[in-house]
């Protein structure tokens, strides 16, 4: 397993020399470089996103996976610049979108891109719709915002069409409903219709199915995939469930404690997991007989406190292979066999150190051979 430091973490994700190697590559639509987002709190600066670099190409689907609190939502929101006003937030780095740096863009300009260039679907469809407004108005106000030339009636018609396109039966009738009168799945479809109203080029779906019933989850994910293909949209699918992203993404980035700890094309990642944290996430996947959205609480221990800077690897407290070096030096992002695959680990899966510790520990090794099969079943 040769692992050479790449120096520039971005190259793993894409633009320059390596990019030409893959035929599927194009200039990235979104390129995030060294993004840091910190919240000033009474307990200190909480580094929710810490030097994250990642790229999304047009029409590509990027999966972001990690446990609760790993910084996925903060990442998605800070890329859009959508941190609520009044919060004391520090954001540095570069976010290149369609040739412009969103970090430096004035808020007035940024707002013009919300909904029309980049849109977002939130986790809980009940709380993300205004409870006192009919869904018809919630959609048509969005339509009119992005196409001010439409009359009220035309905007209504376009809204009905949008509702139909996301699979809502009797859309004209549903226009008069309030959010609480719809089922969870229907509400999330409305949320998706609203996000699509401005025809965005990039869609952030922040755990769009976590709050939903199992049977509905797949319908919603299929709908997102279909819309993405039809509209030639890029999508960032945020989830805590590796199973969800296994079949629905082109690339995956695994986040832990505000950092990307492993990123690779989906196939490569599942074939060749390097980072013990990704390994643990895979092992924590529910078996088939359990509901597929069981929370990832199977990894023992807790993520570190983000307000306290750590010298070494952030996963060290929970990693079966952790050694002294892990606690003293943070591993850099290094490239694996596949140039698009990089990870942060001193003793990656497959190294003698990892294998000897893991064998002494749990059943990890025994399951490692079957993960590809498990992936296809989902």
């Amino acid at each position: 397993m040769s692992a050479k430091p790449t120096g520039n973490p971005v190259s793993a994700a894409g633009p320059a020399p390596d990019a030409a190697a893959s035929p599927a590559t194009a200039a990235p639509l979104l390129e995030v470089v060294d993004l840091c987002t910190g919240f000033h709190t009474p307990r200190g600066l909480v580094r929710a996103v810490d030097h994250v670099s990642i790229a999304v190409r047009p029409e590509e689907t990027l999966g972001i996976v990690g446990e609760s609190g790993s910084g996925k939502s903060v990442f998605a929101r800070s890329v859009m610049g959508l941190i609520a006003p009044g919060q004391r937030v520090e954001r540095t780095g570069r976010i290149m979108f369609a040739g412009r740096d969103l970090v430096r863009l004035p808020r007035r300009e940024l707002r013009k891109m919300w909904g029309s260039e980049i849109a977002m679907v939130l986790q809980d469809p009940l709380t993300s719709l205004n409870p006192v407004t009919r869904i018809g108005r919630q959609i048509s106000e969005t339509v009119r915002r992005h196409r001010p030339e439409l009359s009220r009636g035309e905007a209504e018609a376009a809204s009905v069409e949008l509702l139909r396109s996301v699979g809502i039966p009797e859309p004209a009738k549903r226009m008069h409903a309030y959010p609480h009168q719809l089922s969870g799945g229907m509400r999330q479809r409305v949320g998706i219709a609203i996000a699509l109203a401005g025809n965005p080029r990039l869609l952030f779906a922040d755990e769009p199915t976590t709050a939903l019933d199992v049977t509905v989850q797949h319908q919603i994910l299929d709908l997102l995939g279909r819309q993405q293909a039809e509209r030639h949209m890029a999508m960032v699918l945020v989830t805590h469930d590796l199973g969800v992203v296994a079949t629905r993404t082109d690339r995956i980035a695994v986040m832990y404690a505000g950092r990307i700890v492993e990123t690779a094309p989906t196939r490569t990642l599942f074939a060749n997991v390097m980072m013990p944290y990704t390994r643990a996430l895979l092992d924590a996947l529910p078996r088939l007989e359990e509901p597929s959205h069981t929370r990832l609480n199977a990894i023992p221990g807790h993520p570190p406190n983000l307000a306290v800077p750590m010298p070494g690897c952030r996963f060290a407290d929970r990693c079966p292979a952790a050694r002294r070096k892990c606690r003293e030096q943070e591993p850099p992002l290094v490239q694996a066999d596949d140039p698009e695959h990089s990870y942060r680990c001193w003793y990656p899966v497959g190294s003698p150190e990892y294998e000897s510790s893991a064998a002494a520990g749990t059943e990890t090794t025994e399951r490692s051979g079957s993960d590809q099969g498990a992936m296809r079943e989902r």
Partner: protein
Amino acid sequence: MARLGKSVAVPPEESAKAQPPARRRQRARRRRRAPGWLEFMLKRLAHLTLVLVGVTFLVSVMLDFLPGDPARAILGEDASAEQVARLRATLKLDEPVWVRYADWVTGALQGDFGTSYRTAQPVTEAILQRLPVSIQLMVFVQVLALVMALAAAIYGVYRPRGLVDRVSTGWAFAAISTPHFVVGLFLVFVFAVHLGWLPASGYRPLGDGLAANLQSILLPALAMSLEPAGVYQRLLRNDMQVTMREDFILAAQAKGMSSANILIRQALRPSSFSLVTLAGINTARLIGSAVVVETLFAIPGLGRLLVDSITARDFVTIQAVVAVIAVAYVLVNAAIDLLYVLLDPRVRSEHS
């Protein structure tokens, strides 16, 4: 760290099968709406009757608690025996309390509240003269207070901890802790005595022209509105700030809505429930508590009529004014309930 917890509610299954029952439920909901409303109105009516009977009966009973001969106690030692006898007859003091009360109710139902033995004016007439003045003052006070509070609160949420926010917060605390008459005296000093822009006192009815009427009511209304404005501003600002942290506000931003749209069309309505309650309670309270300002500015409102009647032990008038204020109180409460239903569709489905 204000993060919203994850909702673990499992929504109903969304399959083709699940739809007919849902539609049936909706139809059933519509059918049940009428009885729902009827029940609501009947409850309100019962409430109204109970409150009305309670407070007016209390006034009748109070006569029996005056020491010695109530008529003598009311008229004082200087009154002649003939005067006392006449008052005994007017107040029907020889009858037991329930007969007295039944008589009063019979009259009141026909719009006859009796005649004041203080002014010899029919009480109905006195009330009809003063009620419009009180209502105008109250409406003015509420409108001024709400306009000031809304502007300050919305701007404060738009730019939290900004200059406007800090100034209006400080101002609100000062206004809340200053009595109306102090504000009134101050306003009179500045705008009437010093600048001479507005009359220092006196009420001009609408018949004297709109401008004169508005000028005469502006200072008293302002004097009374600063305190509620401060309370409303604090309440609305805090509720709106909570709403601004909701997911649907984030979603509205993400879909590209403007700041004005988000503050006014998205956040204001779901943040206004407690404000509506408080403003409603205040409406009735303001009619009664206007006494000081009505006296200061010589405004012939219900508050002054009540106080003058209490000083003169004019029970006939007291009973009628109390009844009017009680009706106002109950009606306003019913109006608030209706307003809730309009503001929050979720309450609507619970009602029906």
